[in-house]
């Protein structure tokens, strides 16, 4: 299970004390982990593991949590994702379409070169944003 790192918060210039732990949701699965946090009405999801059907569903379910009903912009941090199959990518495509239908969008951050190539071929980058860092993704949305 990957946890939010201290430097992640530092990068966003958020004091640790300002994070409302009640707003942090974690879904733990056997081969995939998802952690989410709301930041200025933008949902940040940090994922790790193998993005297969389970992984895709975990991300999708997180974005659909009642707490995030008003959210239409999602930043997906993929630094911990080792590989993705087509079923997992399909879930991301659907999430991206849903967000787009609500005049929002999906930003993908920290994908490894191999994963980025896979997303590119599968057409995920056609509509989703690609960002180098969470800070850049947040700036893109605001």
């Amino acid at each position: 299970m990957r946890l939010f790192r201290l430097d992640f918060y530092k990068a966003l210039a958020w004091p640790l004390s300002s994070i409302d732990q009640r707003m942090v949701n974690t879904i733990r699965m056997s081969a995939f982990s998802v952690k989410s946090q709301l930041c200025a009405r933008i949902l940040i999801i940090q994922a790790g593991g193998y993005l297969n059907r389970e992984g895709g569903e975990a991300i999708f379910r997180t974005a659909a949590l009642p707490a995030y009903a008003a959210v239409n912009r999602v930043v997906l941090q993929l630094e911990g994702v080792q590989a993705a199959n087509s079923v997992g990518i399909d879930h991301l495509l659907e999430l991206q379409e849903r967000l787009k239908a609500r005049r929002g969008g999906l930003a993908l951050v920290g994908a490894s070169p191999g994963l980025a190539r896979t997303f590119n071929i599968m057409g995920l980058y056609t509509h989703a944003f690609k960002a180098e860092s969470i800070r850049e993704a947040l700036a893109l949305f605001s």
Partner: protein
Amino acid sequence: MDKHLKKFFELALDLFCIADAKKGRFVEVNPAFSRTLGWSREQLLAQPFWEFIHPDDFQKTVAEIERMQQGVPTISFENRYRSADGAYHHLVWNVFPEPASDLLFAAARDVTEKNLNEKELRKLAAKLQQKILQLHELIDTGIDIIRIDQTESLIQLALRRVTALTDATRGLVLVRKPDGATEQIAFPDYAGAGGEESVDIIQSGFECLGHQYTFMAIGKENRHNSARFETVDKMLLHLVSQQVRTALENRFYLNEMIEKQRLLREVELASVIQKTILPTELPEIPGYRCSGLNIPSREVGGDYYEIFPLSGGRFALVIADVAGKGVYSALLVNSLHAALHAYLESGLPLEAMTHKLNRLMFDVTTAMLFTTCFIALLDPESGEVEYMNAGHLPPMLVRRRGEIEVPSAGGPPLGCLREGVTYESGKFRLEPGDGLLLYTDGIPEAVNPAGEFYSKSGRFEQLLLQMKKSKGMCDPGRIVEDVRDFAGNDSFGDDITLLYLLREEAGRSRGSAVPRRIERRELADKSSV
């Protein structure tokens, strides 16, 4: 005019209606509504139009109608309407509102079929993208894995790629080692094992360098339920596993080639070092004749021999064997050679000198590496020989009368223990006609096809006596020939080194004996031996 327009209203293929936005009801619908959705005109007018809208489209329809109530017309707004058979139809609307009356004048087109076609096209495009991805990944995996040096990392990368490519839930590689032990590499690495009975599994295996590798893809995934692996998945698994096999074999052969080249370079270097130490010529000793021979084995070893004059008219005869092969042994011989010269020149007694040598060799060698050495100090006038044997094979003292003596004083090899060792020197006299043969273990340890040692065969002593009887002088070349004949092959497992010294009998002609000579023969040059 209204009568004419009504005909258009009734004949139109698209859905036309007038609705009351405030009441949320249709005021009038054309027959296309009933033809498309299956509801009668009365049913459509009897209930609020919200009842027909798909729940997921409800919110956005409400928002759109609110905009229209402010007088904003709608172009190409899409939502889904429930038909009488329960299915939903995708309708695209153009609506013109009349805010004063709250009436909406709307025309809609059923795009359900068009959407279905588009969905089908999207599916086909996704499949095509998947195939392109598979090709890309296959090529890239082949390139990426040859860059990885560690076997486990290489397998992990290939397993990760093939698990994702085949849409498997998890991947597994079983590596069965030559000793029967099995290692398991899984992806995802923290997914629990077991429960595989009900899922589809494909596998592909190969054997490489004594290891049996089995690549497995477990549980084919699709969007909603479990599926079965297809032929293309099996092909992908097989191709990736073959890429791993090729990478492993290539790496092994490359390493082997590099190691071979390194060893060759080392042998060359060791050979050069050894050649610089071994004498090219033996000194003249008045009243004596001597000859030496060295045949290095294929791996350059640590044999060493030498005769050199000392102050006071004496001569030192040395033969030594450093354990091990290659550059390291050659360098040790070099150290021994330098130390021997220095200590012998200084006139140290043999016992004290051997202690010093022992400590030196202990300090400069690693554990379990030792040196055997035989040193003889000859006074040519008297024939007196003072000797020290540090763990070396005892020499053969072949008396003129045809007896063989074996001088046995000495101590342990040099470099075994730094302290607590005892060395005892010995003495004998070489009478006219006596010969002294020093040799290394390549001769007695030569083995015949039956597994017998040359030293146990009795041939060595017989040959020495025979040579002594016929010519007086020992011919090292004949000894080598006899060893070769005994062993039944041309290659020696160890270096062979011989050094022979004969005290001439008074009045015997020097020309009739084997001349003072030095021989160093390469194995390749068998004809000259």
